[in-house]
């Protein structure tokens, strides 16, 4: 029996798609996920500076922060006459279907695993940093203070192989982070959204399942405000989808400029 069957009610099998459903409405901002992630993955220390941005001192996802809890204090007209709320959301690598980082990587360091997750192999990465510019969500980052290599969430690849659910999901005390096979997660997420709307939280919606979010994300979120409020964009593209057009246009330009130069040399040297 796998431990995941006990803690996440799922059996982890190669060949299936796994992901995270993060339900931000039950997040209490305890940061157990950030701590569990650092602990399990041996990721370096950061966020020891006082940012003054609510309770958020790690700031954003990056080389040393693979789970990041955002805190948004709001003062505005809300449902049921309320005017104040505190949004909390645990962000993570989206493990995109059309992953920009994966396509951009020239060394093949970034792979899609048997669990349909995206992982950087640190022994192959050479620190070129091209993946960083290709991620539409600002997730992956070079560890410039240390190894110089690209780092991000692995969706606990090693744990999945051992039949354990990811550390963050296991540590989350409110089940704001849920791990499981993608199809089951989506079903659960849709039910939850419908239920919330019935309860009067009409702004509840799922972010990350649409095609225009990098082909659909394995890590998606239930949000109650505009995506930008949580520092998420409205769409995400895989830059590699434009390479072919970019390349043929450049080729045409190259041939034209080459031809132009040849013509210049064919012209009689009237001025010599």
């Amino acid at each position: 029996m796998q431990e995941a069957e006990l803690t996440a009610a799922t059996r982890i099998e190669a060949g299936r798609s796994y992901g995270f459903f993060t339900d931000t409405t039950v997040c209490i901002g305890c940061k157990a996920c950030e701590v569990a992630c650092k602990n399990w993955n041996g990721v370096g220390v950061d966020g020891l500076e006082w940012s003054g941005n609510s309770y958020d001192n790690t700031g954003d996802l990056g080389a040393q922060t693979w789970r990041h809890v955002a805190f948004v204090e709001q003062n505005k007209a809300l449902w049921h006459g309320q005017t104040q709320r505190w949004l909390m959301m645990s962000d993570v690598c989206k493990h995109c279907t059309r992953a920009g980082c994966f396509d951009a990587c020239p060394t093949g360091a970034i792979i899609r695993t048997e669990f349909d997750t995206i992982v950087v192999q640190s022994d192959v990465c050479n620190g070129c940093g091209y993946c960083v510019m290709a991620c539409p969500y600002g997730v992956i980052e070079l560890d410039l203070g240390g190894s110089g290599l690209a780092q991000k969430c692995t969706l606990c690849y090693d744990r999945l192989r051992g039949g354990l659910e990811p550390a963050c999901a296991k540590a989350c005390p409110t089940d704001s982070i849920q791990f499981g096979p993608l199809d089951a997660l989506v079903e659960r997420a849709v039910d939850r959204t419908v239920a919330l709307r019935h309860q009067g939280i009409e702004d509840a919606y799922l972010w990350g399942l649409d095609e225009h979010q990098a082909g659909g994300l394995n890590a998606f979120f239930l949000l109650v405000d505009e995506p930008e409020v949580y520092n998420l964009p409205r769409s995400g593209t895989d830059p590699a989808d434009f390479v072919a057009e970019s390349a043929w246009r450049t080729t045409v330009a190259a041939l034209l400029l080459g031809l132009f130069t040849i013509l210049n040399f064919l012209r009689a040297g009237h001025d010599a």
Partner: protein
Amino acid sequence: MPNDHQPPTLGDYPTYYDKPALKSGHWRWLIIGYFWAGGMAGGSYLLAMIAHLFGDEADRPIARWGRYIAVVMGAVVSPVLLIWDLGKPSRFYNMLRIFKPRSPMSVGTWGLLTFSFFSGMSAFLQAARDGLLRPFGPLARLGKTLPFIPFESIGAFFGLFMSGYTGVLLSNATVPLWAKSYKTKGATFLSSALATASAAITLLMALTDNETPRAIRRLHHVQRGAMIVEGALIAHEVHHLGPLRGYLLRGKVAPHFYSALLCGLVLPLLMRSPRSRAGRILKALLTLVGGFLYRTSAVMGGHASAEDPQAIFYHSDPRRD
């Protein structure tokens, strides 16, 4: 806050403590220098091949200096800059594990490697003919007998590749300013590379007093044509950027951008074909500096846009036209 009836624009979006929603990457001087040197190398190689194949006796200096610039900038300076950027030389080998057509970085590495071979061969043959290899007896004889044509006719395509692919590399990213010009950046970099290559060859011809009036005129014409194309493409790109053009035209990148236009396009075009050697040297230097400044503004403008969440949210908003 943007609503669904009115297309939103920069400044309309809520942000998360004004923090960027993207990572802009670490590209600074080494990579800017590589874009500049690699482009110049590719353009010089192309000019050398064309001068050799389609020109005559009077075009010889173009072929000679074009070959030398190609090997120094392409096979020496470019790899050094790239490997320096990686931090550890041994890391470069990981690039050679695979060939990935969807990754401009992978295709570019193989292109650079191939180009280094061809530029090395051409420079070797040229050096043999210039008598520089005399101490190496048999090698010098071999270099003198091998013809240029088989190498240069293939290598010239890799020269064009070197001049243009960096534009593809730059614009196929999520950085708003770069991504917005993915259709034209390759052509812009190409024309700029041809202009800097013409300038570099003109400069060396002038400095070594190895010039002919016809070679000077031909390079002048090529450079003028390339600069006109480059100017038109830059104008188109700036227009196409819409509100994002602010990251280029205002703020800390603006001085680089405007001086790039001034040094790289306006002044060289106004100088036309200087009669004096000093004039030619000045014009060439201006063009070279201008080409570097243009790449600086392109790279740094991208960083500025990636650091502003407004630019990212605007660029990734499907409701925008």
